[in-house]
C-alpha cells in the first residue's frame, strides 16, 4: 500500500521568506505526485504536480523537488505571502492504481 506523511504538521514563516514543506512516501512504485493547497473553508486546490521521471518542476513561485532514492518530495514557495497561509497536502499515486493517497497536511502560517 501507500502511505504518505509529512515531517512537520505546522510551519510558521516570515512574509517574504522562502517556505519548504516536506513529504515522505512509502511506495517506491509511486509515479505521480501532486501538491494541493487548502485554504480555510475551501476545498483542496491543485498547485503543482510532478511525475517520477523528473526530479524538479517549477511553477509560479513554487518548485517541487522529488528524490526517488529516499522517497521524498518537497514544495518550495518563494517569497511567501500572507495569501499562502493554508494547509498543504502532498498526494502520491501508485503506478496503475489511478488512486491518490493523501498525506496528513502541513499548516503554513505566514507572519506579516
Amino acid at each position, binding site marked *: 500500500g501507500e502511505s504518505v506523511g509529512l515531517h512537520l504538521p505546522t510551519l510558521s514563516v516570515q512574509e517574504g521568506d522562502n517556505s519548504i514543506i516536506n513529504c515522505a512516501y512509502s511506495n517506491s512504485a509511486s509515479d505521480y505526485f501532486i501538491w494541493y493547497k487548502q485554504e480555510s473553508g475551501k476545498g483542496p486546490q*491543485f498547485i503543482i504536480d510532478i*511525475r517520477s521521471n523528473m526530479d524538479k518542476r517549477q511553477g509560479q513561485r513554487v518548485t517541487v523537488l522529488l528524490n526517488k532514492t529516499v522517497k521524498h518530495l518537497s514544495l518550495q514557495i518563494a517569497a511567501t505571502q500572507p495569501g499562502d497561509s493554508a494547509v498543504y*497536502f502532498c498526494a502520491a*499515486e501508485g503506478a*496503475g492504481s*489511478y488512486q*491518490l493517497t493523501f498525506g496528513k497536511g502541513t499548516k503554513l502560517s505566514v507572519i506579516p
Partner: protein
Amino acid sequence: DTAVSQTPKYLVTQMGNDKSIKCEQNLGHDTMYWYKQDSKKFLKIMFSYNNKELIINETVPNRFSPKSPDKAHLNLHINSLELGDSAVYFCASSQRGTGNTIYFGEGSWLTVV
C-alpha cells in the same frame, strides 16, 4: 463557473436522520469521487465512480450509499446518521488515467447533533 459544485455547503442534522449531498462537475471528466476530511484535516477516499460504475469502495459503513445517475453527477446518501459522521465531505473529479489531477469541490460541512 464552478467546476465541481456540491450542495449543501453546510448541513446540521440530528442523529438517526437520513441526508443526501449532491455533486456535479462540468469539466467533462469521466471519474468522480467522494472524500471525507476529519477534524485533523486528514483526507480519505470513500468512493470513486468511473462512467457511472463504482471502481473504488473503501471500508465505509453501508449506511453510506453513493449514486451516479450520469458521469457528471455523483450523490452521497447517508442513512441513520451518527455523531461520528460529522466531517467535511468533498466531491472531486478527474479524467481517469495515470497522472491525472483530481479537482475538488468546496466541501459540505456535515454536523450531526
